[in-house]
């Protein structure tokens, strides 16, 4: 007997939307989240332990102890973690772990809230460019037009500010954004002039931030701690203050936090009937529901499926085609940094306000591309660690003077490069290593396709050109080498498609081998666009949840 109509695993971007849409349709939902609900104070303002600069820890989970992963040493750009044979054992805050977050809201609790629609071409990359050797590049089984109505819903229901007239790289919007774009900090006006000088498109970055009071919460107060931190004005719109509270206030939703789903429960015939989870007291429980929605993020959704082997699906549920966990992708960020003759910093947050989609597509001899934008406010220690010129002094009076004179004059421009998927970039299970609950952990292996690295090099040169055009007197930075990427923008591990031998879920994100098992997170993304993914994750989750309701 089912205790709930639906169980949603994971209260992040996709899971929040799924819970909100299902409960709004009158379904009873059990929402299970391994992390905690984090207050503003609990997230804190530690500049060395946050999701943006996780030097010694982070602030939005998962807990540093008891949640390891392993990775092939060859997948790392530099050796980190502990040696474990030919593998490395990683803690959640270490580079290579591919962490996003674990709490109510997940990454959306502390994200920058950049809110991008993918472009029509992003849904048909194989048709646009052909499939490079060794890549698993493919078209999505749906088009921009299919998703556009859901993008619009996310913009209005979750709350996005922006200027739709500037989005000239997209088909015309049916409706404007519900709120105007955030005001431009001084440095963004400089970068805008740089774009105009080059004749490149200049648009206002749409963000999941209230530029005006909206949905009963106040407007952004332009603080300096946006990305990587919680909003002091509660003006940043994430799952924790939109979809999850909406689901709860419907009266149809039960949220359990600090519960880790171990595996899917199945009937004698192998049909998924529920989930087994372990609670904070290490007690194991199985709960049944008619529909199960997995929204654990691309790494953990794959891990959960692979840890759910059954007699009928011995390689893991949905893994009959050996596809679960493959094609892990995120975004390459080929940042360039510039020193400006004038003070660029005026203290007005969040900061990333101006961008160009001039190079997302149509680059001669290059597959795809990405947008380039200016940057959110960079804390002093982040500047020191990430954006300091390689030839500047690191200690002594000269270093102190350099920081003092130039902190306000250094700016970077950057953006996510669309990755070319590789089937070897992969999440599997490491049965030798267990987490604090005794569950086998995710093992990571492979690397992005070499074409990603080539596109990133191309975009790095464009970033340098932009900085020069904006007036930078010195420019530095290096395009990234080849490694395994996923991280905060992780996607792709349960790709969508018509064919069960080359995909995990169908065009409505139902697992091919199961009637009642759906995925609503970044995993079904066939490709990940040259854009931050969250608006697409939310839009797709909306469409999936609506389909579940319609076909109940």
């Amino acid at each position, binding site marked *: 007997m089912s205790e709930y109509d639906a169980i949603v695993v994971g209260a992040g971007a996709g899971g929040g939307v799924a819970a909100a849409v299902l409960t709004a349709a009158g379904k009873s939902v059990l929402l299970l989240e391994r992390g905690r609900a984090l207050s503003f104070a609990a997230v804190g303002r530690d500049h*060395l332990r946050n999701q943006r600069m996780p030097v010694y820890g982070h602030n939005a989970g998962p807990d540093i102890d008891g949640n390891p992963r392993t990775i092939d040493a060859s997948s790392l750009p530099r050796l980190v973690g502990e040696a474990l044979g030919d593998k490395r054992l990683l803690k959640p805050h270490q580079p290579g772990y591919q962490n996003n977050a674990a709490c109510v809201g997940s990454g959306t609790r502390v994200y920058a809230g950049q809110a991008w629609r993918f472009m029509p071409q992003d849904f048909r990359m194989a048709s646009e460019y052909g499939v490079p050797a060794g890549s698993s590049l493919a078209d999505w089984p749906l088009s921009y037009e299919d998703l556009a109505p859901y993008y619009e819903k996310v913009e209005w229901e979750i709350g996005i500010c922006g200027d739709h007239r500037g989005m000239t790289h997209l088909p015309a919007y049916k409706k404007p954004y519900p709120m105007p774009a955030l005001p431009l900090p001084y440095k963004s006006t400089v970068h805008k002039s740089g774009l105009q000088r080059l004749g490149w498109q200049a648009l206002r970055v749409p963000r999941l931030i209230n530029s005006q009071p909206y949905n009963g919460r106040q407007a952004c*107060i332009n*603080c300096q701690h946006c990305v990587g931190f919680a909003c002091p004005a509660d003006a940043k719109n994430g799952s924790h203050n939109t979809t999850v509270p909406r689901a709860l206030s419907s009266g149809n939703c039960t949220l359990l936090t600090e519960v880790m789903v171990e595996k899917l429960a199945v009937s004698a015939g192998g049909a998924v009937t529920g989930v087994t989870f372990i609670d904070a007291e290490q007690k194991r429980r199985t709960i049944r529901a008619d529909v199960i929605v997995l929204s654990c993020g691309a790494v953990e959704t794959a891990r959960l499926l692979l840890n759910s082997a059954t007699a009928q699906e011995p390689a893991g549920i949905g893994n009959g085609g050996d596809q679960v966990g493959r094609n892990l992708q995120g975004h390459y960020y080929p940042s360039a940094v510039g020193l400006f003759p004038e003070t660029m*910093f005026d203290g007005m947050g969040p900061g990333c306000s101006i961008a160009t989609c001039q190079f997302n597509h149509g680059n001669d001899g290059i597959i795809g591309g990405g947008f380039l934008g200016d940057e959110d406010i960079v*804390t002093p220690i982040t500047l020191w660690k990430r954006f300091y010129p390689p030839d500047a002094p*690191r200690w*002594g009076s000269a270093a102190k003077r350099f*920081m003092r004179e130039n*902190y306000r004059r250094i700016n970077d421009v950057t953006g996510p490069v669309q990755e070319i998927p590789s089937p070897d970039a992969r999440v599997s299970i490491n049965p030798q290593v267990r987490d604090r609950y005794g569950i086998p952990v995710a093992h990571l292996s492979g690397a992005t396709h070499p074409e990603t690295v080539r596109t990133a090099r191309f975009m790095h040169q464009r970033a340098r050109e932009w900085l020069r055009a904006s007036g930078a007197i010195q420019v530095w930075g290096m395009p990234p080498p080849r490694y395994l990427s996923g991280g905060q923008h992780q996607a792709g591990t349960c790709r969508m498609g018509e064919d069960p031998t080359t995909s995990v879920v169908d065009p409505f994100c139902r697992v091919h081998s199961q009637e009642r098992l759906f995925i609503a997170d970044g995993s079904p993304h066939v490709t990940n666009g040259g854009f931050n993914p969250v608006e697409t994750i939310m839009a797709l989750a909306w469409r999936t949840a609506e389909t579940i309701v319609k076909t109940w």
Partner: protein
Amino acid sequence: MTPESAGMNKLFDQAELECLRALLDAIIPADDFPSAWEAGVGDYLQRQLAGDLAKALPDYRAWLAQLTAEARAQYGRGFAQLRLSERTGLLRRIEADEVQTQWAIAPGGFFREIVEACAEGYYSDPGNGGNRDGIAWRMVGFEVTA
């Protein structure tokens, strides 16, 4: 010594503490803004070496002992007894691994780690123990309005 840095006695003896202070204050010296030690970087390091960097404590102690030996070999005095210009000159050579005594631990390599930890204490949030009253943020012009 400030009350906070008194706790360092648990990790370092008096001579080591003086050496550490002389070292940190050569990495970030005083000008019209405070030196590393004055801004609390000693306290930052104390917390770290008792926490996240606990594994590095023996290396810190070993490196400080080498630094003292190297200063004696080159100047006939301990590191803490050197003038700032002498300390800077010596550290520049150590950074380039140009040393006269036998070091059991990479002279320049570990120096760079100490420099990094010193910058973390100085430029990160005051909650970490350094950057007392946000003084480093005032210096660079990072204002927190909310």
